[in-house]
């Protein structure tokens, strides 16, 4: 058994305090200028980056094309000519960055391995140490089924699930939610990059960025009634999540318009896209519309007609939550 001491308490505390202070001054719009922040508040930007040749002629995503797709998305999001500069708008050397992937759907529909590797590569080039990057989900076994190799210790990117470290002992609460948080979130990382997938969900309607946070808590099963509303919004209000969440890179290389959340190849399609934003609500709203368009194309009823529209997205945007924008007139969608 290999026990690895990840960070000293003092180091971590120092980093946490520094980043907390920075977050207090900048809010969610990390390292933006005042003008940029003002603009960001007026409209939420959602970038959709697509590459029809992402897989070449095969099935597997091409790593080089993926890296360039990530670059395009990040440069468009942060209005930068250089990808590393874009990442430097997001993170600072010395921070610990968690990539919360979604691996429930196995190899068929989980956060893409090449995408995760591309993000990790750029994070390191932006000054984050490899072993300060943790790729994680709730369970290491599920991560392995999705194609990730558990990797703990050494000077490399860390890959493991909450099963390896447990949840916090104490409950955190907001509104309808009372849960224990993954120690990876609370103790191992101070920046959260949410890397969800784009898919239909039989109860919630869709599962994209906001719902991916169900993988951060010990009791997600308690929060599925009523289409997960208001549970998803309340969960995302937890300060431990809200203050860490800086970016969402939704993997829409393969997406599902029906039959989720388990992988149903017959209801999936290759969108070969990434949807990127700092606003999880705007991103979820945009993703939902993409799924509805695909459903219409496949001559399926709307989610509303199926009585499972994702009302939690509106709840997340309401006056009690203000987690982002769900008004399409206040979402600026950029396609690259």
């Amino acid at each position, binding site marked *: 058994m290999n026990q690895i001491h990840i960070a000293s*308490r003092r180091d971590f505390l120092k980093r946490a305090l520094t980043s907390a202070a920075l977050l207090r001054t900048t809010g969610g719009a990390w390292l933006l200028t005042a003008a940029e922040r003002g603009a960001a508040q007026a409209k939420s930007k959602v970038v959709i980056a697509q590459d029809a040749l992402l897989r070449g002629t095969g099935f597997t995503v091409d790593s080089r094309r993926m890296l360039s797709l990530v670059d395009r998305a990040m440069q468009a999001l942060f209005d930068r000519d250089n990808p590393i500069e874009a990442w430097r708008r997001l993170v600072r050397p010395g921070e610990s960055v968690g990539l919360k992937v979604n691996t429930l759907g196995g190899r068929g529909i989980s956060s893409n391995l090449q995408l995760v590797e591309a993000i990790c590569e750029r994070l390191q080039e932006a000054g984050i140490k490899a072993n300060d990057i943790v790729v994680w989900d709730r369970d290491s076994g599920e991560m392995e089924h999705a194609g990730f190799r558990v990797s703990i210790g050494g000077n490399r990117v860390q890959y493991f699930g909450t099963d390896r*470290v447990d949840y916090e002992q104490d*409950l955190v609460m907001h509104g309808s939610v009372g849960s224990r948080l993954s120690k990876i979130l609370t103790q191992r990382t101070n920046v959260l990059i949410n890397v969800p997938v784009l898919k239909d969900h039989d109860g919630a309607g869709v599962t994209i960025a906001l719902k991916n946070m169900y993988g951060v808590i*010990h009791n997600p099963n*308690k929060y599925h009634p009523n289409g997960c509303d208001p549970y998803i919004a309340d969960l995302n209000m937890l300060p431990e999540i809200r203050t860490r969440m800086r970016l969402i890179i939704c993997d829409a290389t393969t997406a599902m318009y029906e039959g989720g959340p388990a992988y149903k190849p017959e209801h999936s399609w290759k969108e070969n896209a990434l949807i990127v934003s700092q606003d999880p609500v705007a991103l979820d709203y945009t993703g939902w519309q993409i799924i509805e368009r695909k459903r219409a194309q496949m001559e399926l009823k709307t989610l509303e007609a199926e009585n499972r529209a994702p009302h939690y997205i509106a709840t997340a945007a309401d006056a009690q939550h203000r987690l982002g924008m769900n008004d399409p007139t206040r979402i600026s969608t950029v396609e690259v």
Partner: protein
Amino acid sequence: MFRDLQVLEGKSLDISSARSLPGCSLDRRSFLKCAVASGAALGLGELAHPAAGIPSEVGQQKQDDARFTVEAKFYQKLQNLKIKCKLCPRECTVGDRERGYCGVRENRGGTYYTLVHSRVCAAHVDPVEKKPLFHYLPGTLAFSLATAGCNVNCKFCQNWDISQTRPEQIPAEYAPPQRVANLAKQHGCPTIAYTYSEPVIFSEYLMDVADAGHEAGIRSIVVSNGYIQEEALKTAYGKMDAVKIDLKAFSESYYRDVVTGQLKPVLDSLVTLRKMGKWTEIVYLVVPTLNDSDSEFRGLAQWVKTNLGTDVPLHFTQFHPEYLLKNLPITPVPTLERAKAIADAEGLHFVYIGNVPGHPAQNTYCPKCSRLLVERVGFTASQMLIKKDSCPFCRHPIPGIWHT
């Protein structure tokens, strides 16, 4: 405050498997001490303290651990690999690879499985009075066990760290039915009790343990919220020798807002148990300001009298702030006494006050001659005078199961 975090290669953190249970100190560490101490005193080694039992099985709890995975009994297959669970009134419709609300049942390719068969996360030898069952073999011990999970989410749950968790998140031991029966016998327990979390959600296991126990001459009792469908109740609790139902309130709004359940199915369960002839006692946890009005106490007592009769023991117990309800005080004893007075006035014969050590309403008195019949100190019956199921003074029959 951030703390150091250790990541273990190949294993979960080595945390204690003992859980806080009512009657012991309520934080985990204190409970561990309590479990180990009482386990040692009773000669209980294996389940009370896993380190003394099967340590290699504690720690790494694989989600797909086949030993604990058994096809569920009460469900219906639907289209598109979905299922509808028919175990409790919630009737979760569960898609492939998903779990029901209780978190311990999973749809795998259209077949529904319980993940907690023989997966015991808490075990202890308790006096039967601790359940509480006051009219059932007083002074005897119950080999008490639980798995993770619950089909409701009471904001005051004392055992939330096992009930509101998924099975793979807490250490557990493999305890097949025969082993439980053997352990109960070995520890001088005439009864196995399914308790601490919510036995509804481990019904398949409960049934198999009850069968193994009965073959070995050990009875079974269940401590339940009664939130279960009728067919499952008849099948699973049909194997029980006595039942304690937590009736959490007498209003649907409380069930909706505080319990995340429904009152009506619980009342239906009580009536069904009555028809089945099961010995049943009711506990009502009195939570200040939320379910402590005179009208609610009166409505409850009248309903019990009309539907179950005057001989059903009714325990009003004291609330302690826990879990999501930490902002309310401990129930004042006068509130409990008011509840008892109302139920007494409605004509119920056996109304008790619980969780208040030394209170005279912990004792059993003859409803005819009012003489003391069973005296209780804490969780122990210190004096038991009932003979041939009757009051020794006036010969009035006293309902219950008094002798092994």
